[in-house]
């Protein structure tokens, strides 16, 4: 014959599992629903893609472009690895993601260079040093540069 205590223990186990799993599932739904209105029109990838897509028309037949932003190129990955700032890398990745199959090199040393300035403005000295002159300003911090050949 089963003792009352073990049977109770089993029922508690089942109720605990059923109750907590359902509560966790509903809580996720609640949290998702709560944050939903804020996100609806602010999916950052779609916004970036729309921005960067403008530049596509200016790159017919181009296989590779360079890339510059508000920080030095070598700092883009470094900032992310040190968890200091992931935004610069995210913007670079999204530029490559949008422009594929054009290769976007993390370097200013290409005939055409994409300037992406969401966080900060172009560094005039840096542009001068790298002989980058604007070809077209698409607005919203997106500029296409041309690299002047050495005299």
């Amino acid at each position, binding site marked *: *014959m*089963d003792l009352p205590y073990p*049977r109770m*223990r*089993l*029922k*508690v*186990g*089942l109720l*605990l*599992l*059923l109750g*907590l*799993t*359902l*509560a*966790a*599932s*509903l*809580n*996720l*739904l609640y*949290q*998702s*629903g709560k*944050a*939903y209105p804020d*996100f*609806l029109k602010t*999916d950052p*990838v*779609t916004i970036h*893609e729309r921005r960067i897509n403008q530049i596509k028309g200016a790159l017919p037949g181009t296989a*590779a472009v360079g890339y510059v932003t508000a920080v030095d190129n070598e700092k883009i*990955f470094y900032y992310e*690895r*040190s*968890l200091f700032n*992931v935004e610069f890398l*995210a913007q670079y*990745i*999204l530029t*490559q*993601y949008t422009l*594929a*199959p054009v*290769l976007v*090199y993390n370097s200013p040393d290409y005939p055409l260079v994409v300037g992406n300035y969401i966080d900060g403005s172009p560094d005039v000295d840096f542009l001068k040093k790298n002989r980058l002159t604007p070809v077209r300003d698409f607005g919203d911090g997106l500029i296409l540069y041309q690299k002047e050949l050495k005299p």
Partner: protein
Amino acid sequence: MIFLILLSFVISTTIGILLTFIFFPIRKLKSVGLWLRFLIGAPLGMGLTSCLYFLCLLANHSGYIFAIEIMAVLFFFVFIRRGTGQGGVLNPPVILKFKFQWIFPMVFYGALLSSVISFIIATLKEPHGKWDAWWIWNFHARFIFRSAEHWRNMFTSALEWTHLDYPLLLPLSIVRSWRYSGGDSLYAPIFLSFLFTFITVGLIWAALSILRSRHQGYLGGLVLMGSPFFIVLGASQLADIPLAFFFLLTFVLIFIYDRLLEYDRKGLLILTGLAAGLSAWTKNEGLLFLALVMATRFAIMVYAGGWRQAVKEVLWISAGAGPVVIIVAIFKLQLALSDHLFAGMTMQQILSKLSNVHRYWEILKPYVLTGLSFTQGFANIRTGIHFNPGLVNIILLSVYLMLMGIRVDRKDRLNLLNAGAVLLLMLAGHFVIYLISPYELNYHLMTSLNRLYMQLWPSAVFLLFMAARTPEEALISKDVISSGEKNFKNKQRKRGKRS
């Protein structure tokens, strides 16, 4: 466009289901068994068609993929064997009714609905998926698709930061669907991630329903859906949930294999190898998993059945894994650039990291904290890894197991040991990778550890419910169960005499 994407999934699923009929011809498994065929067949088909697509790409014939796949369907159709075997061989001894049993399906379907809505909201929020989706998986798919015949251009050092050593099951499954539909829409990766997420829930439900009891199946599925990170990661369009699925499928198939002692069941070992092989075609962690599955199965069979049996089984598993491993090898040797974890590492650097005792502690602490918290979501880089157990986690399952007790079928004992050893060795393997990691340790742990845990979570949940006493066993007295078992056995005997 959506119709054509769905068509690509229908064709890959048909190929997978036909394979299950070829290698697993026992038909009468009742309704859950039919579900099981779909749940096994759909991802296997997807994995196989991605391999096929890779071969077509190599041969510059990817434009003919539709015709090639239709031929594959017809080819497999010819090989279907006539079904054999008795019904319900995998089912638990008896299905008994008890008070309030309606609660189980009600809670399960409630959680399923809630999880589907959460998944949809997460997808609407981030239709391109999370960081790694557009950094790695969807980006690779996009580059290959848009490059058309110049797809090899992706494998250049300029894109090494996108982890070009990662295998192609996911990207090529997406590319294949885009090929069908003629454009790189977001529907394909979204549908793929939805499918893998809920097919994992479905597989755990169906497998536990067949191997233990229907209510045990509901509980297994509930634990997965109650783990918020499982749904969030699924909607993120990364490869971790597909990988978790193939791990789980490998274990499920091997458990079914050991339950079917009286049948010609070597086909199940081939499917097991195929599932483990496809895990290696999904993510690099799958290579370790495949090696461990083979090694532990071999070791356990040497103990349980002798050398000959062990060699035989491992050869059948290899027969399933072999073709996929060859494809992974072609990819790794011909296309993938250096492995991002080991590139440029010298033996001296590795030994110096291995001998640094402080490093062990630095990894062990987040290992424990993440182990208790990973079900809750991605690690927050602002707050770091911290204790956040939430409602459903390893502690809850431990308490549940203590309350319910253990009841393991004799045929499952070795498998539980085998699968448990694989999971622990996987964790140990990841620990060693962290030890020798070239990355800053905190960064590497924070960006990957909870995903590594989640890859193993569905398998761990499955194993736990394979061991835990079922609700039927818990809520119905032993006398009723044993009389039910007797009735069931009598029915089986009568059916056997008639046939």
